[in-house]
């Protein structure tokens, strides 16, 4: 199964631009499956061997490697033909595609889809594990329609701060703020999982205006306060970099220091795939660290508000939440008060004095028995949000749980999660 081919027999064929390629052989040396070869003249890709693992893309010094053509599978350019090229052929027209029985919608779908696929070989470990390859780029089928880019960097809108509190029990350096912004009469519709951009005032060290920083909204679609045009954000005050060197995060400190009544410049909304399912019996498995909890809070809160309707009675919510300590975990108090039969919460603390370090992937292994039925259920949706470093470990843990239960991760579950918009990765 490969997502770069669809049922209509259309592929995104991987090609190398002979006008830009310098024949350095790096791609051929890098390709883990031997899909790339050359003659005296050109470097070429075998369409039937390339598994879209993308290992060749970054090492190419010229960018000539990153070319794709929407093709009927039966008409894929053979390497013999590619050897004769002086330049890449143009894209086939919709009429040419239609002549090979490819419907316009199928062609448009293939053309629009970013090429980032996974084939069984890649998932079997024959190629390096690439967690990003499993992440979906499409939303679940029952997601609501997301509005995006209503306000761009050139025309931000203004929101007013109506709340700003530390939502942890941690001191200044490790605190995380829960910030509520109100849009008044300005339309700014957001869905759980979407993010917005905040433009810090002033200029950077080089005298240029600051670039916007993106934050996931922590509130559900009908407002932090139901029925109001407001959103909440979860913002960690940045006082040191990843290596522990003191550094003052421009946007995070600006936001954490805001007073009620202050105004901020906002752009967005952004994001059209990290969205929650809305159909009955849909399950949501949320895996996050730190402020990666923002979209999880939004989804959880939306489900909580709808709980009385009874619509989601058999849909499970499962949360895996990691932080350094209990004190630093955003929303620890409010989370504790959610009913156990509403959400299944698992905490991992990596820096609790006197206790072994525990990470979210350890929790995933511990809860394997409960995750197996979810992994094999097409109603389950998985969301991962937090620091980049967790992504690979989490996806590997999910794979291990599946493989441990003799489920077919490589051939069925992994590709299905991606294709059906049921595994979403948002890491930074």
């Amino acid at each position: 199964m490969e997502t770069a081919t669809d049922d209509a027999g259309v592929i995104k064929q991987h090609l190398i631009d002979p006008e830009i390629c310098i024949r350095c052989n790096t791609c051929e040396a890098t390709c883990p499956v031997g899909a790339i070869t050359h003659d005296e003249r050109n470097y070429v890709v075998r369409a039937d061997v390339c598994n879209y693992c993308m290992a060749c893309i970054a090492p190419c010094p010229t960018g000539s490697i990153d070319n794709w053509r929407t093709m009927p599978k039966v008409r894929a350019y053979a390497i013999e033909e590619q050897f004769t090229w002086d330049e890449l052929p143009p894209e086939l027209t919709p009429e040419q595609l239609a002549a090979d029985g490819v419907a316009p919608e199928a062609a448009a779908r293939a053309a629009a889809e970013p090429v980032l696929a996974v084939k069984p070989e890649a998932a079997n470990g024959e190629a390096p594990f690439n967690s990003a390859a499993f992440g979906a780029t499409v939303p679940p089928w029952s997601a609501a329609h997301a509005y995006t880019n209503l306000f761009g960097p050139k025309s931000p809108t203004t929101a007013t701060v109506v709340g700003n509190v530390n939502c942890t029990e941690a001191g200044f350096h490790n605190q995380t703020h829960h910030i509520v912004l109100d849009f008044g009469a300005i339309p700014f519709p957001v869905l759980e999982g979407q993010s917005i951009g905040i433009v810090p005032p002033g200029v950077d060290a080089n005298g240029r205006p600051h670039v916007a920083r993106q934050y996931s909204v922590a509130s559900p679609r009908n407002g932090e306060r139901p029925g109001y045009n407001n959103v909440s954000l979860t913002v960690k005050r940045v006082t040191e970099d990843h290596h522990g060197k003191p550094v003052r995060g421009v946007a995070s400190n600006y936001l954490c220091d805001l007073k009620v009544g202050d105004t901020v410049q906002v752009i967005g909304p952004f994001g059209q795939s990290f969205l929650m399912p809305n159909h009955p019996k849909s399950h949501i498995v949320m895996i996050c660290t730190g402020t990666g909890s923002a979209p999880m809070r939004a989804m959880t809160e939306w489900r909580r508000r709808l709980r009385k309707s009874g619509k989601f009675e058999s849909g499970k919510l499962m949360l895996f939440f990691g932080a350094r300590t209990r004190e630093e975990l955003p929303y620890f108090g409010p989370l504790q008060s959610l009913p156990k039969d509403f959400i299944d919460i698992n905490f991992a603390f990596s820096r609790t004095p006197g206790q072994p370090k525990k990470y979210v992937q350890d929790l995933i292994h511990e809860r394997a028995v409960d995750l197996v039925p979810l992994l094999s259920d097409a109603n389950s949706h998985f969301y991962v949000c937090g620091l980049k470093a967790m992504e690979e470990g989490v996806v590997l843990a999910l794979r291990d749980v599946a493989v441990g239960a003799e489920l077919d991760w490589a051939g069925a579950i992994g590709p299905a999660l991606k294709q059906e918009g049921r595994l979403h990765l948002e890491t930074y």
Partner: protein
Amino acid sequence: MAIDYTQKIPNNVNLADDRTLQRALEQWQPNFITWWDDVGPEGSTNHEVYLRTATSVDPQGWAVFDYVKMRDYRWGIFLNPADAERQIHFGDHKGEKAWQDVPGEHRANLRRIIVTQGDTEPASVEQQRHLGLTAPSLYDLRNLFQVNVEEGRHLWAMVYLLQKFFGRDGREEAGALLERTSGDANNPRILGAFNEKTPDWLAFFMFTYFTDRDGKFQLAALAESAFDPLARTTKFMLTEEAHHMFVGESGVSRVLQRTAQVMNELKTDDPALVRAAGAIDLGTIQRYLNFHYSVTIDLFGADQSSNAATFYSSGLKGRYEEGKRSDDHVLKGQTYKVLEVQNGQLGEKEVPMLNALNEVLRDDFIKDSIAGIGRWNKVLEKAGLTQRLAAPHKAFNRKIGALAGIRMSPDGRVVSDEEWKAKESEWLPSPADFAFVASLMGPVLEPGKFAGWIAPPAMGINKNPVDFEYVRFG
């Protein structure tokens, strides 16, 4: 000086647990930075450059792009992943297990090979140190600096091998790599081409096309080595070397594109008119090509060499793409044709293949170089011009080997001293050519703008637009 090893020196050689290596690097690293400050890219200390840094050897980690001040570049030590079963696949030890350490009997030769390779890396940084002041665009400036930091990393790679496997003499050799200086009459770099000046950007593009391609072939031959750490180091270096050749090939190609455009606009092939319009005439480009080509093929060494035979038979250095060749990989009793001068004329003679391995590698290089010249000619063809560039004859302007000193025209005729003197300025760049090209050099530092003698590239770096701010000036 304390070094945070994992952060500061990305590596996959377990540096954090290797105290001996740590100490050696602690001694060496400050000298490296001093060297960089003294003879590295001039006036670049505060520039923030959009650079590629390798943080691991897998496809995700080896090309991490960000703005970096070059002095803070994270020079890392990387070996390609090990293959525990790897066997020696050529020479007298064929079929034996690859060496993880240096065998005593090959120690001196291996050290010499590594020092010679290592010496070229800082040399080219020194040769290119003034070019940043006259970059034709931010894009090109960034590419120059990328080449510079990667040459720096290649030096680190060779220094790692010296310090890790060659004890005290290795440490001394590592120090000496920072002491020799390109073009220094008293303490020059080891190889001739690395003491030549790289006076302008056309020379830089020719250098990265031809001379860095010599690097590619030497590294490729060393990547076959029975000494596994050397093979794995050089294999990884090849990926970076590819970028250098990209800079050269696309650089010359863009110069040609601009020249062709001017020739078409003015409907002329008169070099004087092309020059007056601020582009570089094809004759000058051909002369630069002749020079860099001939100086570079000298780098492969004497056409008959018992050292080359020893290096091969003992498994230290293979041939280019050894693994893809279908002969016996021992080469005893086989012959190869080399050129020689007989009665003032060129002739061929058969010599033992093992002794001719320098020539074999040189011929592989020539084939690869000529293919690229063909791609340059495509630019002229596409522009509707009939002129073409060509590689000069292999015996043209040679200083090393049996062909050294004979007077040969680029098209392969033995010529008299008089004819050579009369034609030299048609065949090799003259002081007037250098002066003209130098007159075109001047910094163009506005994003998306390019000097008048070079066309913009087809695409930017790392999918960024051509007018991306590739260098920020602090």
